């Protein structure tokens, strides 16, 4: 216990960050903020993957985080393109108003 940090602390930190993201998705109406909260959840999971990969001295976890970053970048590019298209057509990105998927 002298030099290190218990893995439980990392699990707690990741759980707290993930749940802040979940609350953000549920409590906000702006679609861009919801996107950002999803990014926050992805990062909480990434942090836990890196912590466990360091714990077990296995590089696969960190490679997984690298791939998650690539997929998140692709997801954000497509998602923001869709959102800007929605804003151009409906002049709003309030998800409560967009929930019916029709005009």
């Amino acid at each position: 216990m002298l030099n290190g940090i218990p893995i439980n602390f990392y699990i707690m930190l990741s759980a707290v960050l993930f749940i802040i993201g979940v609350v953000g998705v549920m409590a906000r109406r702006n679609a861009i903020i919801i996107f950002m909260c999803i990014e926050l959840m992805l990062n909480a999971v990434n942090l836990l993957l890196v912590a466990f990969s360091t714990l077990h001295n296995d590089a696969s976890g960190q490679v997984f985080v690298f791939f998650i970053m690539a997929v998140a970048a692709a997801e954000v590019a497509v998602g923001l393109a869709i959102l800007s298209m929605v804003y151009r057509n409906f002049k709003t990105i309030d998800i409560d108003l967009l929930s019916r998927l029709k005009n």
Partner: protein
Amino acid sequence: MLGYTITQWLFGILSFLAIMFALMVVFTRNPVNSVLYLVLTFFCIAGHYLLLNAQFLAVVHIVVYAGAIMVLFLFIIMLMNLNADTEPRKHIVTRVIAGVVGGVLLFVVVGALKGAEQLQIVQGGASQIGLVKNLGKVLFSEFLFPFEIASILLLAALVGAIMIGKRDTNINLK
């Protein structure tokens, strides 16, 4: 210092800052401030990566997330001219319910970890796998095929984003 090492102090400070900034992301009304707080959260997470000696991922995290993705978010928000006045708000009951659900979820996770083993330690600075050399070796030998697939995925996302974002959507297929 009070029986804790520098690593443990840094872990505590970075965790506190990360959680505070993450809370500010959710509770700030202005979307631009929200993005800036999320950038600060990402810097704290990059600090955690450095603490775990995952140097390559820390740099990639700052470059990709704080540098590219967040600038994209900021760009779109400023393009739509969103600010605190135009920000739609959920009903107070919905927000209270969201908070309660989050609290219960946290309670479940903490409760599930109650009986977990306490002795496992993440050694700060002892591990060498996070360095560019070792990670590159694994990435280009064991994970070469997924790496190539990721490049195709990024190309598809690039083409898709351009197709969706084009102003003229009446594409003539004939």
